[in-house]
């Protein structure tokens, strides 16, 4: 960026006491990640980005196809448990968006994905067992 322009932008930003952000504000904010809002329906029970360690199955660490296939299976389970009923609420395209979001967001946040891998595998297994009862 041209230094003169940058200085001008800083000056413009001063009255708002948000100088550092005004530079960034010149660029159009990125589109929110696809599937994020849909996937946030899962956060109440599975934690932010599927990372909860205190409740239901962790979704962090699962591949998109694993999540998608689990959701597909749940749709036909009888009698439906709560999650089986819940899975019936999404179209095929929406399930793919949700699955892709979880797989992607948890591979791009590097710091936590490695350290939580073991716990994820364990809890996924126990959940699958419970589900196939």
């Amino acid at each position: 960026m041209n230094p003169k322009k940058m200085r001008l932008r800083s000056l413009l930003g001063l009255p708002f006491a948000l100088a550092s952000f005004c530079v960034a504000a010149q660029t159009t904010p990125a589109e929110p990640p696809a599937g994020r809002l849909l996937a946030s329906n899962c956060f109440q029970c599975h934690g932010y980005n599927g990372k909860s360690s205190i409740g239901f199955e962790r979704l962090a660490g699962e591949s998109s196809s694993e999540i998608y296939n689990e959701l597909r299976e749940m749709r036909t389970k009888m009698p439906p448990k709560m999650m089986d009923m819940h899975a019936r609420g999404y179209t095929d395209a929406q399930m793919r968006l949700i699955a892709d979001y979880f797989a992607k967001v948890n591979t791009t946040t590097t710091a936590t994905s490695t350290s939580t891998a073991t716990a994820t595998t364990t809890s996924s297994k126990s959940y699958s067992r419970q589900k196939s009862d």
Partner: protein
Amino acid sequence: MNRRDFFRLASMAGLGATAASWTQLAGAATAPQLGTVPTNTGITGRVVVIGGGMGGASVAKYLRLWGGTGVSVTLVERDSAYTSNILSNLVLNGQRTITSLQYGYSNLASRYGIRMVKGDVTNIDPVGHSVSLADGTKLPYDRLVVAPGVDFDLYPGLETAAAQAKVPHAWKAGVQTTQLRNMMVNMKAGQTFVMSIPAKPYRCPPGPYERACVVADWLKKNRPGSKVIVLDANPGIIAEPLAFANAFDVVHKGVIEYHSGVTINSIDATTMTLNTSLGNLKGNVINAIPPHRAGKVVASNGLANVGGRWAGVDVLTYQSTAAPGVHVIGDASATTQPKAGHIANQEAKICADAILRLLSGRSPDPSPITNSACYSPITSDTASWLTAIFAYDPVSGTMQPVPGAAGEAPTRSKDNYEEMIKWFNTLMEDSFA
């Protein structure tokens, strides 16, 4: 830092707080599984949130998590902590204490850099884009979110504080919940607990039926021969009809006596008598849940444009249909969705996402989905559940239940009871941690 120190610090920080100070706050003590506030998404704006319940706390948190440090969020709340209504029926049977249901705001401040302001809102100026507080503070905003929950009508006869203390509704968890617990404990064997259910819409559709079950279960074991008389203003059980019909007719048979379509005309707290469409009825304990309306700040600022009680909103953004730039979420808004904490949390996410898109010059997501889920204890170790998915219907402009994706548990079970505790903890984590 204790809470008092925090509020003092927060008020000292004042409106001149720079983005840099938010960044420093946001960086402190963030647990990895909870997410961190991104330093810069390119989105800037000032959002004020009124009310720190399930909706208000969630919207504040997600505005920061998704919007980043350029979005300053101020949360105005009159109480020092939120007391969960969810699970508060378990205070009545002694399985929980009120303090175990309390959630402070320190996580929202330290982990997400939300500015907490303790105070009462006196006025919203939707033209000048500012909120006034009782202490004279003015909070300017680009977008305002109003999440005050519900207020209650008074039954004739219960106008005084003394009368209200004798006939608590205990429908806003807190002092009255503990009072009602004490009244139950003071009952003698063979006595009568009378409760009333208001016409819908009210907060937590299965809640009153759940309460009847929890109270009946406790009385059966501890005050044998006692009865729970349920006076429902609705034409029948409005939530989980299978589970509660079974609970009333089988599980708690002979203890719960259920009457539908009952109008309460007045209540005499001195003689402990209800004047109803069924005639006069005496109770040793009376728990009258009154008709609801949106929290006072809604009506007093011209936002109650649905039946004079609720705030009309566009469910793509939760923006008020009465005032641009003002969004109303949770129990106070008039939508086709139930009034309950779990779905308020999801409405909050849709509202946060929409505000961030609007601040970026984008349109809101055209096809939002919400989910409602809850568990209801039927006894001290079994529960049922209820769930529904709602999708936006562009023709009616409302959220409509997705066919085949709504229903209740086929039977009550101990597994459901255990899941209920897990669900509660994760839901509260998503909203307050």
